[in-house]
């Protein structure tokens, strides 16, 4: 693999990605390209295979066939921690925080992958480990401030309000220094006010040079922030384009509302 293309335009390329569970085809031959620095949305009815697609990208599942190329590198079949190291971070549809760790520690776990301390350093609290811990604590606080929950730094994650938990999950993901951030239904269960704030937050994330790939049900959010949309139904890609194009697409309307008689 020496023909490494110079910084590719596409941060993520999925080629003919298929994931089967026994007889069920959860993701069926999906190809898509995500450009550096855009907000790309994945929508579709429940059970369309959106989260499965995320899991295939982040290494939680091994795709049955097809390729995942991230930042010019083939990462098909990589382990989750390898994917995270390469620079893909994610949040989960049903929030998966470390419940009985403080918010600060949650974010510091996110920083783990960018830390260098060895077991030996930690065991004997060597000066370089101390310095790194101090630095990482500062950085973690910075991430908490970025998402606006710094004042809860020392609370257990499970004691946060729902919306704050979603924010904390984003902060934890950002702490891994990702190039690509996958958000799995970040606005689920949000009030309209919270949705507006979330959209602002996504813009801010974009401002840091991070590409955002999100799954979302709420059309206002999707149409409001994403530049391009792919629609999945029964594991198949049925439409791709700008929000306006997708909104008018017949197959999309059918998938959501059923065929008109």
């Amino acid at each position, binding site marked *: 693999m020496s023909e490494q293309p110079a910084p590719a335009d596409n941060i993520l390329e999925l080629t003919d990605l298929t994931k089967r569970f026994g007889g069920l085809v959860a993701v069926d031959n999906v190809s898509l390209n995500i450009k550096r620095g855009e907000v790309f949305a994945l929508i579709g009815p429940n059970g369309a295979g959106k989260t499965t697609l995320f899991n295939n990208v*982040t290494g*939680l599942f091994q795709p049955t066939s097809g390729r995942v190329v991230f930042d010019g590198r083939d990462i098909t079949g990589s*382990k*989750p921690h390898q994917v995270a190291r390469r620079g893909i971070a994610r949040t989960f549809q049903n929030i998966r925080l470390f*419940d009985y760790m403080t918010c600060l520690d949650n974010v510091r776990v996110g920083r783990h992958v960018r830390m260098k301390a060895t077991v030996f350093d930690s*065991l004997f*609290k060597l000066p370089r480990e101390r310095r790194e*811990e101090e630095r990482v604590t500062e950085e973690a606080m910075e991430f908490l401030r970025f998402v606006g929950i710094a004042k809860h730094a*020392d609370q257990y994650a499970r004691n946060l309000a729902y919306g704050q938990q979603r924010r904390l999950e984003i902060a934890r993901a950002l702490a891994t220094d990702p190039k690509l951030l996958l958000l799995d239904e970040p606005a689920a269960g949000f009030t309209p006010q919270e949705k507006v704030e979330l959209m602002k937050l996504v813009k801010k994330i974009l401002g840091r040079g991070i590409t955002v790939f999100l799954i979302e049900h709420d059309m206002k959010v999707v149409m409001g922030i994403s530049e391009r949309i792919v629609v999945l139904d029964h594991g198949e890609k049925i439409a791709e384009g700008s929000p306006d194009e997708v909104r008018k697409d017949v197959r999309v309307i059918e998938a959501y509302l059923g065929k008109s008689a």
Partner: protein
Amino acid sequence: MSTSVFTRLHLRDRIRDRDTAVYSILLILALVFPMASIYATDGTALVSQATRAGTFVLLAIGLNVVVGFAGLLDLGYAAFYAIGAYSYALFASTQLVTLGFGEIVPQLFYNFDQWTGGINAVGGIDQPTLPAWIQGPWSGDGPFQVVRNFNFGGDPVAFYVLICILIAAAIILVNNLYRSRLGRAWMAIREDEVAAAAMGINTVTTKLLAFGIGASFSGFAGAFYGANVSLVSPDSFLFIVSITVLVMVVLGGMGNISGVIIGALVLYYVVYYLIPGLPENVRSLANSIGLSSETTRSLADATQHLNYIIYGGILVAMMLLRPQGLLPSRVREQELKHAAVQEEEAAVEMEHAT
């Protein structure tokens, strides 16, 4: 409101404060105990016992890394204890973590009899000494050597001091780990393995590290044990040792080092004092209330036979009374509290539904 105040900011300080108190008490006890017991009993038998208890404290601190921090189960823990003891025994004299491994290692030592003496055990192990360059030129037997060669041989207090130092070192090292990158990674895996992996933690190597570090403490304790009793036999490392140490950790309060130390001491007392001493106590009790010598004997025999049942009963009672452990970590306490609240809510819902 009250819950949020409880969990806010002072959480850490409160844990530190409680730990500081426990450690201070333990330190004072450790200092006073040898003097008091030698003064009271005019002998060092109790100090030797305390040293044995200290070995278990060291074992429990190590296992706490595996069970309490990383949330893993290690049933072959005594194997490393055995390996440590035999390593010391073999080198100092003339050395996967499954239930299977825990069983294999003692069997191996049983059967490798040309080296380990089989069931006859390795005896006459040399006692540790300090190297001459530490002791200085003034030690020894020559004319200018005014101090006796320092030797642990035959002095239980020396071993007692050594185990106290080892425990103190272990506490510091394990605490350092707990408050490090690795400690957080263990906690994260315990809380949610999938999320931990998605955050870039290599769950396999991190878990192996927990096993490895736990095992190294176990091995260390084993080496100390070998040096201390200067006789290692496979019987000292049976499966029951793994279980006992595990119970020490759970009983003391998983994940909380000071709790685990207390748990180890309490359970050591129960297993090696209370239970073996029971028949004798029952006998004297029966005697003093004037039962016939026949009934006295049968009662004592019955307690003897029911040893393990009584032990089990004590464990069950302790788990019922304090499921979170004697001195639980705050996390564990909260987990159980929330679980209880959820159960109650579920029960209430069920009632409404019917």
